């Protein structure tokens, strides 16, 4: 296929060529950035929690007097354990995808000079770690005498388990076991590393910091009450939670059952990503509309060209061009214009990404999106041009002999 005559013809239709190229360029910029946004969200939707979500639920109680907390814990733990099908009930302050009660900044020295990062402290009673189904990859899990009573927000000195990504962030390349860190004056020592334990609010964090969690063993008491972790067979979990609600009304009439907070982990996960799913849906809708509109635009303009050039096509056919030649002509022409548009679009995509980065704290657009976007647009262009090009190829050589 000769490119020279195509370029010569395009030069005579500079404006229409520019319009298609511009449309492709804009589409390319929006497409790359929208796909990138979607990919970010989808990654978030599939964040690894590290816990056995399908087997877990939580019950949140409020409204009781602080002085009744110890008594309430005892009543609730015993009462809920008697529900048929319940495998375990334990106390846990923060809940993955749910209540957030232990977000704090830690330091790597006692003086508080070397800031480590903002992490989530999961303060859990005996059995909560097994119930969550956390995997200890090195070191050890909590021993019975690690669980101690405490006053205030958290135990002030404890042996804890941290996630691998937090260990990697704090002490990259070295063994985290035996390392110390501080929360203000409170001291903690790492005795185990767990695979994953997601924060309660992963939507608010970027990259690996979604998984910066610490498990602190402690005994239930005045300051660790009202937030319970229920484990049952995945088939039973919804029914167990319903039973738990009825049981609470009987054994703890003084407490308020928090309807919003007490859910199965499956429901908590669904709720916490509602907005992100909405955003993905909207972006997918916009992308489909965008591709559709761009394709329709190409169909319209090329149809016009074909109609305009009927006579020239007829002449070419009369002097020996095959149908395939005509078809290829329009296909090549489209390929050239789209390529031009894509080159322009890549620049635009980066400009748009820079704007988004500056104002909305988005990460940089990875280069891999550019070839993907290009292939999609090339494909779209070829698909759109096919109809008009086939019509052009069907023009009979006789047209050349007719006077207009």
């Amino acid at each position, binding site marked *: 296929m000769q490119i020279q005559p195509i370029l010569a013809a395009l030069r005579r239709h500079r404006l229409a060529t520019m319009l298609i190229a511009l449309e492709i360029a804009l589409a390319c910029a929006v497409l790359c950035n929208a796909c990138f946004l979607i990919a970010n969200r989808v990654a978030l939707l599939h964040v690894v929690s590290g816990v056995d979500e399908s087997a877990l639920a939580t019950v949140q109680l409020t409204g009781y007097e602080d002085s009744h907390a110890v008594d309430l814990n005892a009543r609730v733990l015993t009462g809920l354990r008697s529900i048929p099908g319940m495998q375990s009930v334990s106390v846990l302050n923060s809940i993955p995808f749910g209540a957030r009660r232990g977000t704090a900044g830690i330091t790597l020295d006692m003086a508080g000079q070397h800031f480590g990062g903002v992490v989530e402290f999961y303060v859990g009673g005996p059995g909560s770690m097994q119930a969550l189904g956390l995997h200890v990859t090195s070191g050890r899990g909590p021993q019975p005498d690690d669980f101690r009573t405490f006053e205030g927000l958290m135990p002030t000195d404890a042996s804890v388990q941290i996630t691998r990504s937090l260990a990697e962030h704090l002490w990259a390349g070295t063994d985290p076991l035996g390392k110390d860190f501080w929360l203000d004056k409170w001291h903690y020592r790492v005795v185990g590393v767990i695979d994953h334990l997601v924060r309660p609010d992963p939507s608010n964090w970027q990259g690996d910091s979604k998984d910066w969690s610490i498990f602190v063993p402690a005994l239930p008491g005045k300051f660790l009450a009202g937030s319970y972790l229920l484990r049952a067979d995945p088939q039973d979990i919804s029914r167990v939670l319903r039973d738990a609600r009825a049981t609470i009304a009987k054994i703890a009439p003084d407490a308020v059952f928090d309807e919003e907070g007490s859910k199965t982990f499956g429901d908590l996960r669904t709720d916490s990503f509602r*907005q992100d799913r909405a955003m993905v849906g909207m972006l997918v809708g916009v992308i489909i509309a965008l591709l559709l509109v*761009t394709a329709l635009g190409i169909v319209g303009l090329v149809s016009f060209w074909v109609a305009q050039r009927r006579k020239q096509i007829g002449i070419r056919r009369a002097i020996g061009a095959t149908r395939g030649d005509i078809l290829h002509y329009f296909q090549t022409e489209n390929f050239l214009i789209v390529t031009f548009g894509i080159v322009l679009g890549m620049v635009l995509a980066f400009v748009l990404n820079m704007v988004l980065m500056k104002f909305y704290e988005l990460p940089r657009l990875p280069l891999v999106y550019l070839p993907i976007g290009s292939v999609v647009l090339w494909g779209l262009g070829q698909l759109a041009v096919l109809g008009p090009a086939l019509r052009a190829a069907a023009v009979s050589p006789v047209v050349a002999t007719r006077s207009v």
Partner: protein
Amino acid sequence: MHMFGYYLELAMRSLKRSPGLTTLMVLAIGFGVAASMTTYSVFRAVSGDPIPWKSSKLFVPQIDMWGPGQHGGDREPPDALDYADAMALMRDHRATRQSAIYLISPSVIPAGAGRSPVQANGYGVYGEFFPMLDVPFQYGSGWSADDDAHQSAVAVISDKLNQQVFGGGNNVGRTIDIEGKDYRVAGVLADWNPQPIFYDVMDTGGYSSDGPDVFLPFQRAIAVNMTNSGVNECRDSPAEPGFVGLQHSNCVWIAFMAELDGAGAVQRYRQYLDDYARDQQAAGRFTWSPNNRLRNLPAYLDHMHVVPGDTKVSLLVALGLLIVCLVNTVGLLLAKFLRRSGEIGVRRALGASRSAIYAQFLTEAGVIGVGGGVLGLLLTGVGVLGVDLVLPIRLVGLARIDPALLLLTVLIAVVATLLAGIYPTFRASRVQPAWQLKSN
């Protein structure tokens, strides 16, 4: 103008002649406008001014009680106040009206035997909170400064709580059981849940489908040890445990709002805040020079990034789609108009002026715009309904279809199409009559 009817007829005739191209253009404009307007309706809902008639008079004071470099990298003071500073501002009372505000969630026992307690969300506020924010009452009113001073056991409850506890009706003067203590109902609110929740951005992030249920006098709530159920941010952990420890710490957990009338009052209040910080510096509590902010409500909401970033990004993406649609329309109109060079040539040869050609073709563009606008209206309706289905609960009900939105949709479609039609029309009006007549 007398030719308008004729041009309209010509336009309809021409559009009917190439139904494919016409449909394409109407579709493109309809899609573009609908996508933009749908996202705009959400954007408008979340970025709206919750109290437009008064927002320029409402101010949020911020005081730096933590010192440089303690609240992020910028020299911004914390987003809320600690107990000591909030109480000092209340005592000095330099604003027309003012109130410290903190989130409480007491349990309330409904009237009648054997009912289980319900949890109510609400706020500890001062009596001036209600007139300052023009809070509407169904029955009764707020409480007086006297009630504030004497820590009176009075409460203002929402219509919803009024239904839950008493089963509705005017219950002003009756007694309500809050956290095991009796309160006299001073007022029952009418439906009131402005979005964003501008008086408590720190705890709610700005949006909540549930409005507050109960308001108690601030000092009363403190006195009966009703704990802060909102967030608190601390530079140092409190020296003493519990709610009293929080009050004695420099953790921030109290929202504050002041009404200031006129630039002079704002200037004086600013001066007062600086004087206050300087006094604290002299007393040795602050070891840094005054670093205060006094933003009016719109500026404060902007500072707190109340509008979700997602919404702005989707608006931007939808605008991109609209531009693509417009470029598309320019191309299609160009194709359509230039195809009729012969017709234009004949009209020009018969004496039509360039402006007559302009009028004819812009009319045609306008007709396409109206078509696109009508389609856009339908799609926007579908879009807004769809948005309600997928939007997070806290934002549901915010995006609404109203006459202004409908009008704007059609207007944008028509204006955009006319703009897109300008260049193709210009090209059409440049057609040389003689050349066209000869070649045909």
